[in-house]
């Protein structure tokens, strides 16, 4: 039935031009170059040439390619995929923040999107004032905010601080207030992007309950998250995106299984074909496996267990394995050596050519990382592969503190505790 379809996306695509030297503040020189460049492009377009871009340093990133799907009223759809798979871009198109470059999307009903909690909060305004401001930014009519005001305030547990400027609130309180407003947004279609990773555990749980209510009340929900348990709890259907294309569309459990299998494949890397090696090559690293989560079937995340396994062609005595992790900018973050003993180390029982290194709580912030591996025996370099594996770390909890992608300085999390003045 066509009438129950509330979202239909037909072959939508979106490209981004990533400028090598693009900064948020363009200079006059850039601006003039840009103006001239766009004239050139326009002239080029007139005679049917491809856009050259300026200075030839523009990369085109295809965030979405021919994405087609439709969603019926009342469905709760989880959208999963790795970082950069196009999930956020898709939600941005559906919420009309950005336009597709190709294809089209039809939407029926009021769309409410929750791509970031608390955007539009003004620090100088009081909690009460911000509820109204934020609500209206999210598209809530004033009458509705008024009607829901008491519920919102109660849900947020801000209590007596309602009439103080929110710059005096703790960050947790700000987030609670923002989410509470959003939680009472009652659109026909709700788009949610990874916003539940904020706040303390108890509040997260209440938010989840509220999300479940919304989904249960017959509203259509599109939910982006890296947290598979959450996606499975909230959604009935899953769409797996990878490199901007739909890889799988079906029941949520199958979608999650597909995604994890896909991830696992990506994380067990066969190195036997690699020729860019250094060392004597009497012993070679043939395979690297990265397993995340308690049972190895998860996604590498801050604070979660992570295991690296290295399979060698042979393993004579005194073989040493070591590896280094670099962040996406190429900075070395950590080094691991099997040659330096710790009482925690164990020896494999039986014959094995595997070195396995286990990290109980991964202290890396979310982002992309690269691993170099080296094997030595008798102090001679046997094998060395740069970029033997690449992996992505998702947001998580470290030392019971939620560490999201807004932590941009450095690349490690350190367990810590604060003592703060009383509120």
């Amino acid at each position, binding site marked *: 039935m066509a009438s129950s379809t509330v979202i239909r996306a037909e072959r939508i695509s979106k490209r981004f031009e990533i400028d090598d030297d693009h900064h948020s503040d363009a200079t006059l020189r850039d601006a003039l170059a840009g103006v001239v460049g766009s004239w050139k492009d326009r002239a080029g377009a007139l005679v049917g040439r491809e856009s050259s871009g300026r200075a030839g340093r523009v990369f085109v990133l295809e965030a979405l390619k021919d994405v087609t799907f439709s969603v019926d009223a009342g469905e709760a759809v989880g959208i999963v995929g790795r970082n950069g798979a196009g999930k956020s871009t898709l939600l941005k198109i559906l919420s009309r*923040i950005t336009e597709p470059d190709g294809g089209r999307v039809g939407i029926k009903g009021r769309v409410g999107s929750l791509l970031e909690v608390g955007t539009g909060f003004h620090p100088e305004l009081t909690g009460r004032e911000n509820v109204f401001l934020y609500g209206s930014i999210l598209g809530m009519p004033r009458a509705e905010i008024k009607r829901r005001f008491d519920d919102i305030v109660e849900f947020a547990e801000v209590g007596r601080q309602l009439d103080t400027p929110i710059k005096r609130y703790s960050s947790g309180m700000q987030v609670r207030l923002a989410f509470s407003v959003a939680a009472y947004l009652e659109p026909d279609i709700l788009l949610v992007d990874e916003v539940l990773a904020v706040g303390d555990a108890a509040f997260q749980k209440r938010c989840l309950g509220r999300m479940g209510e919304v989904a249960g009340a017959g509203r259509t929900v599109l939910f982006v998250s890296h947290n598979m348990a959450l996606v499975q709890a909230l959604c009935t259907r899953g769409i797996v995106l990878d490199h901007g294309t739909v890889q799988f569309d079906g029941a949520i459990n199958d979608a999650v299984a597909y995604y994890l299998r896909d991830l696992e494949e990506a994380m067990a890397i066969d190195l036997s074909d690699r020729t860019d090696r250094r060392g004597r090559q009497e012993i070679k690293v043939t395979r690297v496996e990265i397993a995340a989560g308690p049972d190895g079937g998860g996604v590498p995340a801050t604070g979660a267990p992570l295991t690296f396994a290295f399979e060698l062609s042979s393993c004579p005595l005194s073989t040493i394995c070591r590896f280094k992790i670099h962040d996406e900018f190429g900075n070395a973050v950590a080094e691991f050596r099997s040659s330096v003993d710790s009482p925690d180390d164990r020896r494999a029982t039986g014959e094995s050519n595997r070195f396995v290194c286990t990290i109980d709580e991964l202290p890396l912030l979310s982002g992309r990382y690269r691993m170099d591996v080296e094997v030595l025996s008798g102090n001679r370099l046997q094998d060395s592969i740069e970029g033997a594996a690449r992996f992505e770390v998702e947001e998580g909890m470290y030392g019971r503190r939620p560490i999201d992608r807004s932590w941009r300085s450095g690349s490690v999390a350190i367990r810590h505790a604060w003592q703060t003045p009383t509120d």
Partner: protein
Amino acid sequence: MDLRTTIDAAPRSGAASDSWAADFDIVLEPTTGLRAFRFGDLVRFRELLYFLTWRDIKVRYKQTALGAGWAILQPVLAMLLFTVVFGRVAKIGTGGIPYPLFAYVALVPWLFFANGVQLSATSLTINPTLITKVYFPRLYLVMAPIVAGLVDFALALLVLVGMMVWYGVLPSAAGTALLLPFLLLGMMTTVGASTWLAALNVKYRDVRFVVPFLVQILLFATPVVYSTSSVHAPWQMLFGLNPMTSVVEGFRWALAGAPAPHASTVAFSTVVGVGLFVSGFRYFHRTEKDFADLI
């Protein structure tokens, strides 16, 4: 199955001609050139303009010692400065109007324009997260500081009334009736210039540096400290190309008893003002879809 064939049979480029327009409330697709303007969104989000304006009013003078006193102090201080420099030292002719009143009556609409443009030009770029994370008509971000400026305008107007009483100047009946149209022209000019500058600023941050100069130059290109009544007719029309000329001279005529601006000047100004408003609107509307990608 039926549905599928309909979709496939529909021409890819045929926009809303097929069943999509009937099946859905909105159809999002890439647009080139001019697209249908969605007035519905402006109406649906009208309360947001109210809240953004209200936010701007609330926040504008937060943590200033004098608070809303600045709304009055700004034109009064400028008036005092101009009176000393242009009234006393340069002895600019005012046609018998006391110089303080002559300058102040012009400063009230002028500062509305100047402050509106300066605040609006950066209104998009100072709110990047709003633009990349939430959908709403971006026009309201640009309009809010201008509408909020009406409060400052009204406060400054109160001082003007006091000055008129002090100098014993009676407003002309015809002038007072035309004050609103002049204010409207001033608002259209302000919104027109702001939409252009704010939209350009998203792409070219140079605008941020250009605006202060632009406002400075326009201050002297607009008869705020002097009058055009001494200027020959053909030149007056040239002045008319700057819509604020008519706004300022109109205010001076209506409230301070200065000679009425020439009809041709006002006609020119109106055409340019409306042109700026319409073109600014169009440019803003055309570039709005890329704001989230560019900012």
